[in-house]
């Protein structure tokens, strides 16, 4: 009896201690477990959403690349399956009209549209990336950009002067001696499909000759087309925005130069951009320190192909062979001799109009110039015709 009573008393006290302790410990552990489970559940979701977002962006960029490829093929190889021709057809073929979802992988795909841009060499591309698909997407990203290719000037003349002459200043082309300017196919000129030049020489002001220059006119055209309005030149002139882009491209390829230059041997093929010493656009009010002359002369054993773009004047003499485009924002003087010459076109816009454009004015050479539209477009095969994202236009936008 004694033992039983004592045991009953002790057991009653122990029961009261164990239960609260167990409950407290269990509560604490349960709280921690629940918090940990919440973390463990939300973290993978956040990480998964982040990954889906990155994948959707990659899908949208895939759509952009696909559109750029189609546009490039349309320019360089129009018969390629899937190419989008240049100019843009109407209606735009699928999937580039946004009507089809293009599956890239099990992870997702894109919808892409191509539309005409503000200029003939611009297209607006909108690509939307979906993950894992466009029916029940968990992530959507949209990219917009303007695609462009190198501007086709397609000048209507082998030698063109003017278009940017300051008000009150005259533009003049002086042709003399035995200068040769060929704009007929019979004399070696070549035209692009659908593009017919109108003259061998074209000026915003006068065209004067001395001696006996040999000028051949294109079919239905003339040898000299003088006193043309500035607007007649606007389609084959580089704007300041064009010049800025060409400058950046030349910088990227290491062919950007500043200040007056002399080339006694062929420079690297491709785009050569020669800028003012300050790097500012060349204008009629540019300081004298920004007025430059690029001197090309010598007796070259090899030819040069590309675009020579100068924010100033160009002087070409000697026996040099150049294929492509000679573009000067001021004047061009040519006194070439020998078997060399320019095949493509020569354009001077006369922004300052110091001398206008002279072609063998001093009768010291034949300065042959032969119109070739394709070489103007692609710099004799050295200027890429592929479409690319126009700098400053690539952006991510909201929406689907």
């Amino acid at each position, binding site marked *: 009896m004694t033992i039983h009573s004592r045991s009953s008393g002790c057991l009653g006290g122990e029961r009261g201690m164990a239960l609260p302790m167990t409950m407290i410990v269990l509560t604490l552990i349960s709280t921690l477990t629940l918090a940990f489970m919440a973390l463990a559940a939300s973290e993978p979701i956040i990480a998964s959403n*982040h990954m889906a977002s990155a994948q959707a962006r990659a899908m949208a960029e895939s759509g952009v690349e696909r559109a750029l490829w189609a546009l490039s093929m349309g320019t360089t190889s129009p018969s390629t399956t899937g190419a989008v021709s240049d100019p843009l057809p109407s209606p735009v073929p699928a999937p580039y009209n946004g009507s089809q979802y293009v599956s890239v992988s099990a992870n997702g795909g894109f919808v892409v549209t191509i539309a005409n841009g503000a200029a003939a060499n611009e297209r607006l591309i909108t690509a939307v990336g979906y993950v894992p698909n466009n029916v029940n997407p968990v992530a959507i990203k949209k990219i917009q950009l303007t695609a462009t290719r190198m501007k086709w000037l397609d000048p209507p003349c082998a030698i063109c002067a003017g278009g940017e002459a300051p008000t009150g200043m005259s533009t003049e082309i002086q042709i003399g001696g035995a200068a040769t300017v060929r704009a007929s196919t019979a004399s070696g000129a070549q035209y692009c499909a659908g593009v017919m030049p109108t003259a061998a020489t074209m000026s915003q002001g006068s065209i004067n000759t001395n001696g006996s220059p040999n000028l051949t006119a294109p079919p239905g055209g003339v040898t000299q087309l003088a006193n043309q309005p500035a607007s007649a030149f606007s389609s084959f002139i580089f704007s300041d925005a064009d010049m800025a882009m060409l400058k950046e491209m030349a910088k990227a390829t290491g062919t950007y130069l500043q200040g007056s230059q002399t080339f006694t041997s062929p420079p690297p093929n491709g785009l050569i951009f020669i800028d003012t010493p300050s790097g500012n656009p060349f204008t009629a009010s540019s300081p004298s320190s920004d007025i430059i002359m690029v001197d090309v002369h010598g007796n070259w054993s090899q030819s040069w192909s590309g675009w020579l773009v100068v924010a100033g004047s160009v002087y070409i003499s000697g026996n040099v062979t150049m294929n492509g485009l000679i573009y000067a924002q001021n004047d061009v003087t040519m006194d070439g001799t020998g078997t060399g010459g320019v095949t493509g076109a020569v354009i001077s816009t006369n922004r300052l109009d110091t001398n206008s454009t002279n072609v063998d004015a001093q009768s010291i050479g034949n300065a042959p110039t032969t119109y070739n539209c394709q070489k103007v477009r692609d710099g004799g095969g050295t200027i890429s015709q592929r479409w690319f994202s126009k700098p400053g236009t690539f952006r991510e936008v909201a929406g689907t």
Partner: protein
Amino acid sequence: MMGQKGFSIAELLVAAAMTSVLMAGAFVLLQQGQNAYLFGAGRAEVQQTARGALDRISRELRTGSVVTALSSSSVTFRFVDETGATVTVQYSLNGTNLQRNQTVPVPAAAQPEIVIGGVNAFVLTYFDTNNVATTTPANVRTVNMRLTTQPQDATASLSPANQRAIVEDRVRLRNLI
């Protein structure tokens, strides 16, 4: 009766020992649970802040048009926002805060703003068009970012919450030739 009201020394010692063992077990269990929680929470915090910050910088750098100034821990660049406007912004490390300072257009909010705190390191390297490292801003075409984060609140170095996360990303500026 008197014997029934008290406990012997031996009984008390046994009870105390058993209680101690139980308490120690419970403490260990609780501490392990708490450590696991602190570890997970710390890890989640540093990963989330690093991921969020790097995502924001890389999104803006991706639409960048030019880098105007740079160092190994700060970069100033212009980018095109979703409206097509050009924005000038600088990301830099100030103490343990990663700062964003937008200068053009001037935003309504005070600048610079703190993107995240608890940054242990923010290391930037730059590459040109040939993927060669460069320190000339005009030549930068690609930016490599390496961000190391730690908990924003001070924690003991041996605490399970004292985590580090290192995230790295390399972005090509899309609005450059």
